[in-house]
């Protein structure tokens, strides 16, 4: 069937093809880069591409981003048809693993400079047996809270909260004052509740990597207290959110905060650059408050983006040259400072020039890092744990489900397909 389809197709459409002019062959090799980071387009055009082309005459770069929402679907279709770009921005974990298994991404083990990445940095783009890494890690993003310093001054909050009790005491103060919406977050897009809520505050309860691994090994369940507690805290956030937060979308929250109408914005380091451009007030940041004073702190330090090579590229040599460059300290330096908030995954210190980014990065020294709990292995089946977490986190904040019900639903869904490795 498939064969005959193609035959007919070929015969009938090739007539039209004759009308299309043959493309001109350029002397330079041009690499097309697929990415979902459409926000970064100007930075690539102005900083990263010129830096690369200066050091590599004969290779031109064409950064071709797709909106994040459509990226996976569009990329997969293009890879299947062989029209995808030469270099592919890799989503962490299973989405890219699947591409590697289908032979659409090549191994990156032999790219010079791979030794600059630790095993943890490579974890998002490495096979389960840890033998092959198929993308060159680029950056991680950190979770945390951004706050409006003017708002804190006006209300009389001296220092950002360190514990959950202080956090709620501050929220209460801001609410009582009435000038600012205490917390800028909405639930209609659902992923904010999960990513900037649950995954942001959760690691302090489930103790980061310890809890995450225990879940994968089947030693803990999502109904255990340390996994229900973040939902309980989220439920307590609801009274401090803006009016009608149930219909508040992600850009609404961003504008609410940058226009100076909200005091605290639960988020991640990726907002640093856009916020700096838009906010007219001083901003500060603080890590997720710990449950009790003196508790160890954990932060979501999530491997987010990497680059791999399309197995069908016509310029494998040039693509490898580019990948090797992304593994170099030069790239790390340019990238981290052009995009403050995206922290290079290379070992060794990168000098941060942005003060907020610097502060985010400093948490790595005092707190323990962990990746988002749902990303590795646990979202491989149906129902998909990541999707379910979005839905449940939003339900809890909307008050349509209790934290316990949400946890039970997640665990039940996971139990229906997931068998922990013994």
């Amino acid at each position, binding site marked *: *069937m498939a064969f005959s389809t193609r035959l007919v197709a070929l015969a009938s459409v090739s007539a039209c093809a004759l009308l299309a002019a043959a493309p001109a062959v350029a002397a330079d090799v041009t690499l097309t880069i697929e990415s979902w980071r459409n926000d970064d387009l100007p930075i690539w055009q102005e900083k990263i591409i010129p830096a690369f082309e200066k050091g590599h005459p004969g290779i031109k770069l064409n950064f071709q981003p797709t909106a994040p929402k459509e990226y*996976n679907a569009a990329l997969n279709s293009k890879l299947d048809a062989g029209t995808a770009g030469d270099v592919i921005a890799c989503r962490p974990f299973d989405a890219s693993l699947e591409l590697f298994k289908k032979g659409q991404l090549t191994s990156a083990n032999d790219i010079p400079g791979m030794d600059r990445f630790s095993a943890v940095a490579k974890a998002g783009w490495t096979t389960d047996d840890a033998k092959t890494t198929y993308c060159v890690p680029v950056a991680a993003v950190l979770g945390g809270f951004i706050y409006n310093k003017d708002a804190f001054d006006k209300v009389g909050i001296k220092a950002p909260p360190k514990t959950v009790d202080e956090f709620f005491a501050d929220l209460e103060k801001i609410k009582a004052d009435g000038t600012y919406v205490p917390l800028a977050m909405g639930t209609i*897009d659902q992923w904010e509740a999960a990513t900037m809520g649950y995954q942001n505050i959760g690691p302090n309860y489930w103790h980061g990597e310890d809890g995450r691994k225990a879940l994968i090994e089947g030693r803990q369940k999502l109904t255990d207290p340390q996994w229900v507690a973040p939902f309980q805290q989220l439920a307590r956030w609801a009274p401090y959110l803006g009016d009608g937060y149930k219909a508040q979308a992600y850009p609404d929250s961003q504008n609410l905060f940058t226009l100076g109408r909200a005091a605290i914005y639960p988020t991640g380091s990726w907002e640093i650059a856009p916020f700096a451009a838009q906010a007219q007030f001083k901003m500060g940041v603080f890590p997720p408050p710990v449950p009790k004073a003196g508790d160890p702190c954990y932060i979501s330090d999530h491997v987010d983006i990497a680059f791999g090579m399309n197995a069908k590229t016509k310029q494998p040599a040039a693509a490898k040259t580019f990948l090797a460059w992304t593994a170099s300290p030069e790239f790390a330096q340019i990238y981290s400072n052009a995009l403050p908030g995206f922290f290079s995954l290379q070992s060794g210190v990168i000098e941060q020039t942005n003060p907020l980014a610097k502060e985010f990065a400093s948490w790595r020294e005092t707190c323990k890092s962990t990746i988002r709990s749902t990303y590795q292995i646990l979202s491989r089946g149906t129902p998909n744990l990541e999707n379910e977490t979005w839905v449940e986190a939003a339900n809890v904040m909307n008050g349509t489900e209790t934290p316990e019900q949400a946890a039970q639903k997640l665990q039940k869904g996971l139990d229906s397909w997931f068998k922990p490795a013994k």
Partner: protein
Amino acid sequence: MAQVEKLAADLPLLPAAMVGAEALARARRWHILVFLAPALLVYTVIMILPLIDTLRLALFRRVDGVPMFVGLDNFNILFFDPRWSGHFWSALGNNLYFFAFHMLLQNPIGVALAALLSVPRLRGQAFYRTVFFLPTMLSFVIVGFSWKVILSPLWGVAPTLLGAIGLKSWFHPWLGQEATALTTLALISVWQYVGIPMMLIYAALLGIPAEVTEAAELDGVTGLAQFWKIKLPLILPTIGICSILTFVGNFNAFDLIYTVQGALAGPNFSTDILGTFLFRTFFGNQLQLGDPNMGAAIATMMFLIILLGVSLYLFGIQRRMRRYQF
């Protein structure tokens, strides 16, 4: 392609009664082909064959990367595995609600607007017609964005307007509540698409020959009575077309909900219809990988549902409808 060849082979058997002379029949056979060939060719190659290629996937499943024939097992999963069936039935239920809402609002409003517009010598007809059709021409990107802003509790267009007439307390974050989200989206969709039935029915009303209405007026049938007794029966076939277009459109709907609520069709899947369920399954979402096999199974079901609806219309309703030739 095969159909075209079959057609060519069949043509010599044309009923002779219609044509008369055999020479004429021979001449006829080629121009029918000429009339049909371009449409059939493009349509078959670009649309039907790729779709068959996709639907065929419903009978397979990838096991360790290798496609395996599993017969109807994917449908078994879709209907009876609680992990899938819950979503499927709820999406189907939401879709039926979405469609019923359109039938009850969109088409009657369309007929009413067309009837008002076709009042003879009404001033500003062209203006109204253009304005009423405007929403239909907008992309989902624009429709979704503007309504989200209007209904946003933060930017206050809807709350302000309601406040102006003293009904501020009526405002709710409609798009964010499970109980109201789907209805709100259906209303937005009706707003967007009312132009289509309006335009078709307007054209049909204008197409009614003056002799018919004059005769009615001579008999003393005027105004509303004339509309109900004379014009409505004449435009019934057009209303039929509108209904079936609405049905097909609603069961293929996807973009508006995807633009406004995302692929997970929140809150809590309350706005999930077959189109969003299919997109999520076929192409994946965030960490969920695309599953073309289950996606194809859902697509096949959508196809069968629409086929059933269209067949019911074509064989059950359209056949019984009287057609008037002017």
